[in-house]
């Protein structure tokens, strides 16, 4: 299996708090890795480091063998895309617009090209629109295409957040608590989509507190606490470990019974 993402000895601290303590990790195509751990463990910080929101104090990141560096937008253009804990959808825009603005290649977005819409821009727009509608169709949300995104129910908004990230068509997908507050059919849709994307050759990493979701979806998992990776293995192994359960304040145990 080809390696998509490799983290080598990542370290980062803010003031006195260590959010990443010598983190090394590999993610391959088709894998869905779960990141679990208590609050403050450094899970979202890891996403911030990989996506470029924050620069590490030391350590390196590789995407498909090439060093991944530079500001956020360059990393997204390289094919690393993430979703956010608080969604961060574009509030004044429709669902379709949110998705169209998320494509990795965007020939029409240069101001000059927008002014003198050449045929190439029109073609690119049509192609992006086609992809967006396909994604919406897979999620059963075609009818929502022209709604202002914040008018949709919460669960659908989270699906749109995922759809928007998928427009990037990147090899590395980082999902930050995608399932928080989602239930029922939306939950199943999201599960199905993530599995399909991994099967299509993407490397997916998921931060989630909902452990049953992680059990259902992830191929394996990593347990983090205080910026360190304490254990890696299959989700079963991690959830059955006594010490990790204690570290996680018994939450894992409850979910394991449910």
């Amino acid at each position, binding site marked *: 299996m080809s390696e998509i993402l490799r983290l080598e000895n990542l370290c980062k601290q803010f003031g006195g708090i260590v959010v990443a303590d010598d983190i090394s990790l590999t993610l391959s195509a088709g894998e869905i890795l779960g990141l679990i751990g208590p609050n403050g463990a450094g899970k979202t910080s890891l996403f911030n480091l990989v*996506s*470029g*929101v924050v620069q590490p104090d030391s350590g390196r990141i590789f995407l498909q063998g090439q060093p991944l560096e530079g*500001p*956020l*937008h360059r990393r*997204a*253009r390289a094919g690393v*895309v*993430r979703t*956010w804990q608080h969604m*961060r*959808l*574009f*509030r*004044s*825009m429709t669902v379709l*617009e*949110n998705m*169209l*603005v*998320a*494509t*990795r290649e*965007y020939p*029409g*977005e*240069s*101001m000059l*090209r*927008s*002014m*003198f*819409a050449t045929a190439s*821009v029109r073609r690119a*727009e049509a192609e992006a629109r086609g992809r967006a509608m396909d994604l919406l169709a897979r999620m059963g949300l075609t009818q929502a295409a022209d709604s202002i995104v914040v008018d949709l129910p919460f669960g659908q908004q989270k699906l749109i957040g995922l759809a*928007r990230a998928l427009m*990037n068509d990147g090899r590395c997908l980082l999902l930050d608590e995608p399932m928080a507050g989602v239930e029922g059919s939306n939950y199943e849709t999201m599960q199905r989509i993530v599995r399909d994307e991994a099967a299509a050759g993407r490397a997916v990493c998921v931060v989630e507190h909902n452990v049953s979701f992680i059990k259902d979806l992830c191929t394996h998992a990593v347990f983090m606490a205080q910026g360190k990776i304490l254990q890696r293995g299959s989700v079963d192994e991690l959830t059955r470990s006594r010490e990790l359960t204690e570290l996680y304040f018994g939450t894992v145990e409850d979910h394991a019974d449910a």
Partner: protein
Amino acid sequence: MEYLANAGMLIGIYIILAASYNLIIGYGGLNTIAHPIFFALGAYTAALLGIGTTLPSVVCVLAGIGVAVVASVALAVTTLRIEGDYLLIASLGFQLGLLQLVNNFEFTGGPSGLSNIPVTITGPGRGWLYLLICAVLVVVVVWLIWRAMAGPFGRAVRAMRDDELACAALGRSLITMKIVIFAFGCGAAGLAGGLYAYYFQYISPEQFNVAQSATILTMVVLGGIGTTWGPLIGAFVLVALPQAITFMQLPSSLVGPLQGIIFTVLVILFLFVRPHGLVGRREAGVAH
């Protein structure tokens, strides 16, 4: 009718200024008050080249646009990391500093300005010919801005206004977008400057000071920040209105301050009573 041509030219020039300023602060969300400076750079460059060289006037105006664009990019790059309120102050300082420079140098004519800008079009139809050229340019500028904002670029800019971090994390270069908007807006102001210099044939530093900033700002606020038609209506109203005062046969020393009072009172009124301007609609997302 010279008088109508003058008013028409003023309206056209101010539409370009207001529309480009609206692009910068309304669409781009950039905090600057220094728009008249690029108006000045365009005017002075065109004027100095027109007076000092034999270059055709079109070239001089193009040079004016070029200087405005280069200066705007230089300013943008240096002030890139300055945030919100400080950026406003930086732009104000930049404007006043540059005006001081113009005031102090001999070759720019100092405080008394340049009054020997060469004639380019003569004859009885001068006013109308200029007006025609101006009208075409106005349509072009406004149309270009509209197209940019209605297209994919405008979409990316709206995303940037909604959430910069998310926008950048999806691959958009915020800096590029801001610089491009700023450069285009300032270039348009430079064009307006060139037009102004050649038509009115007299420019001086005091035409480009904070009062001018306030005038352009008034037009944008009155019309509606971040709308397409707003700056046009704002420019029209605020050129036409003071012209009404000139009919009252007041001594010239009163006309200036009276116009200024009308402008400023209008801005303040609109800021409080109708912040979305004449054209804008009260939207949740629009910053006011």
